């Protein structure tokens, strides 16, 4: 890489960090239990807005995996999300009424929390509708994975976003609190993902899945990115650039093997398509706080009006991580 390019990326990284530092003033602590974070604790970071119905299962899922502490930013929820989170024993909660969009879709806040609390910890950054699945997750806790990553000198772990959907219109059967959203919407597309390398940041740009197929068939280049690097052994100089799609320094984006082999990777099961999406899509149209001029939500709203069924006869029903491994969506890599 040319020296100039390297310097530009360094500047960009500094800029995100400075931005995160400035945006820290938008965060007001509600419950701060960060003193309880142990030296080797695994942290989970998330931004939420009106996700009350999802939270009980979300917290349980990640507690069972072995997350030690949750660092959550509440962006002006009105449905009791804040009260619910504030009452949890292992959650540190911040509140912000500022613009989600102008905080780069929450990433500035997350970058700040990572900078402040994440140093030398394994940090998992996920949304409340994303469920992390990794090789052997049914028999080995998250700690086994992070120990193995440490021993292998791997600093970041990729997990592609896998959109899950039910059979029939997704607002037909409402999701109930505490229910496993994956059991509620168990289907996914197994093999229609396209990949391009991003020369600037070195990451892969993955698109496809049911959203691309249904809402972006004629505009495939606008389909949402599915590549994610949610698990990182965080160090102060690191910064997320765009959602958790890519990071700086660039080396953290090299989660793929270029010489034919497979590195270990996981999936983020994305339980977006439950009935609350209908209201969300409406609300987002008023707020206009989402990525790329809320293009995605506009497409949903247009699509939702026609009662779409994302299910096709080629849809796979989710069983376990081994199924995803066989289908080639994730890999055990060298871990056995």
């Amino acid at each position, binding site marked *: 890489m040319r020296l100039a390019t390297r310097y530009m990326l360094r500047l960009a990284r500094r800029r995100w960090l400075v931005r995160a530092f400035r945006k820290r003033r938008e965060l007001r602590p509600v419950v701060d239990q960060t003193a309880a974070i142990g030296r080797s604790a695994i942290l989970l970071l998330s931004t939420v807005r009106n996700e009350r119905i999802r939270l009980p299962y979300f917290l349980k899922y990640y507690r069972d995996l072995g997350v030690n502490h949750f660092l959550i930013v509440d962006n002006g929820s009105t449905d009791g999300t804040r009260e619910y989170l504030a009452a949890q024993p292992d959650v540190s909660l911040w509140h912000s009424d500022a613009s989600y969009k102008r905080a780069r879709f929450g990433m500035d806040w997350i970058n700040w929390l990572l900078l402040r609390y994440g140093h030398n910890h394994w940090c998992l950054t996920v949304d409340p509708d994303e469920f992390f699945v990794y090789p*052997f997750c049914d*028999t*080995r*806790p998250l*700690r*086994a994975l992070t*120990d*193995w990553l440490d*021993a*292998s000198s791997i600093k970041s772990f*990729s*997990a*592609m976003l896998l959109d899950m959907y039910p059979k029939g219109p997704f607002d037909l059967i409402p999701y109930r609190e505490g229910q496993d959203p994956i059991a509620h919407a168990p289907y996914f*597309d*197994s*093999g*229609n*993902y*396209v*990949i*391009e*390398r991003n020369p600037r940041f070195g990451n*892969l740009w*993955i698109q496809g*899945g*049911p959203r*691309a*197929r249904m809402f*972006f*068939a*004629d*505009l*495939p*280049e606008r389909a949402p990115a599915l*590549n994610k690097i949610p698990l990182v052994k965080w160090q102060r100089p690191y910064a997320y650039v765009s959602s958790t799609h890519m990071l700086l320094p660039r080396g953290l984006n090299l*989660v*793929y*093997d*270029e*010489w*034919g*082999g*497979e*590195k*270990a*990777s996981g999936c983020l099961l994305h339980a977006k398509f439950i009935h609350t999406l209908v209201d969300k899509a409406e609300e987002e149209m008023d707020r206009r706080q989402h990525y790329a001029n809320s293009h995605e939500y506009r497409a949903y709203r247009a699509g939702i009006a026609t009662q779409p069924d994302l299910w*096709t006869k*080629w*849809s796979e029903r989710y069983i376990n991580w081994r199924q995803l491994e066989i289908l*080639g*969506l*994730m*890999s*055990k*890599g*060298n*871990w*056995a």
Partner: protein
Amino acid sequence: MSVGFVMLCHNDLTRAAQVARHWAENDCPVVIHVDRRTKRKNYDQMVQALAGLTNVRFARRYVCEWGTWGLVAATQDAATIMLRDFGQVRHVFLASGACAPLRPVDELRAYLDARPQTNFIESVTTADVGWTVGGLDIERFTLRFPFSWRKQRYAFDFYVGLQRRIGFRRRIPAGIVPHLGSQWWCLTRQTLTAILQNPDRPAIDAYFRRVWIPDESYFQTMVRQVSGNVESRSLTLAKFDFQGKPHVFYDDHLSLLRKSDCFVARKIWSQADKLYDTFLSGDPAPDLGGEPNAAKIDRLFAKAVERRTKGRSGLYMQSRHPNHDWENGVTAAPYSVFAGFADVFDNWEKWLVKSTGARVHGHLYAPDRVHFAQGETSFMGGLSDSAASRDYRPLDFLTNLLWNTRGERQCFQFGPADNQAITYFLARDPNAQISMVTGGWALRLFKSNLDFADIRREAARLQKIETDFAYVLRLPWVKARVRVWSLAEFVENPIEPLQAIVDEISPRAMRRLTEAPILTDLTGFGQFLQALRNQGMQPTLVGDFPVSENGGFGAQQRARPYLVQ
């Protein structure tokens, strides 16, 4: 007579203490060495935890950085204590703090009692070692390594390179034949005392002090000097990955470890509660009584290494995105591409399904939409028939299709009217079987209901595109299996090529074709070509087609194609 354990520990001392207690309570003396870099507090806790046991000793603590002499010094010290304090010990077993016994101690004792003079130590001459990562084998003994491999990698590599260039060599002391092997061994009292009480030991130690990774060579070399009874294998089950780092065992390996028949396994994840509980509980593992045999586990870990280094052919995903020419198989499975056949034969796709059983698609790269088999609007894996989606990443479309349909032969039609973005890819893919009848598109134009001026323009366009494709297929680096006929050549004798194609698709069937596809009606085609020529367009790809009334090849051929018997 008994066996004693020397344990080298550096972290997770609680687990190490558990294992030490297990052995000590089963009448095996244990001498423990704890790395000096481990915190005093943890060390004291371990000493405390084992305080009640009379047959446990702690050795002097050395700094044990990986690949340095400290590990050997620690082992020497601990072994000396073992031999001095426990006179009944006949075999000394070297284990680490992350080891766990897989079989009851009594079985190990019985096994060793039956082989009282045998030394179990992997010891291989440097020339025969295949596992050294980084390529240093004999050079471990002949170069100097003043820099830490872990912390000063650049200096380490530079200095090794420098010594190689200069041709520097350390002299190997007389009588020493370098051997390498796993650092986990089980040696007899006789052998160990001979090594430790060797009058030349100071000189030998001084030499090995500067050898790289002496823990993998010191005892392995010295044992050859003092004993003739060496079984060159380790009783400890340890598997290494492609970076030379040990594989870790977890709870889900329990049944596998029970099947391994090995006595001790390394290394166990410190929080694998089920493994520790099972193997330390004295719960008798099924008495296999067999020879230690790690081969059953080998396959699992060999597969892991292969997946990491070679991966699955034809898979493109978030953690496998090979550079050009490093794909190790660009696509997942063999497939067939037919250009022009659907125009030459009326019932080509149906016939191909019937004679091969393969999945036969139409023009996958057609400009209007993707023509999947049976007119499906979507296909395996959720591929959509939208032309825009396909043309967005045309190669990914093909690799996805082939990955999704592993186990089922795919065939599709291709022609100059289709998206040509995949031609170079097809040409360099050894899985592609490309059969092309050049000029086939002329038949479609011939039958179309267009104005002749449009036909002429379209013919010129398609001919140009197909010429380019034919050119690509003739390039010197082409890896695909390519067959090309001109239309005239092909219709003269269509059956023979068909037999070859079908045999290649389903080689095991080895059937003679009994039915041929129906050749399309060529009446008037020769005149049609002549008309094109008269308009100034030269249909070269079609070949030499006679201008007779019935298109040269008679209607009788259409009625019943002649079969080669």
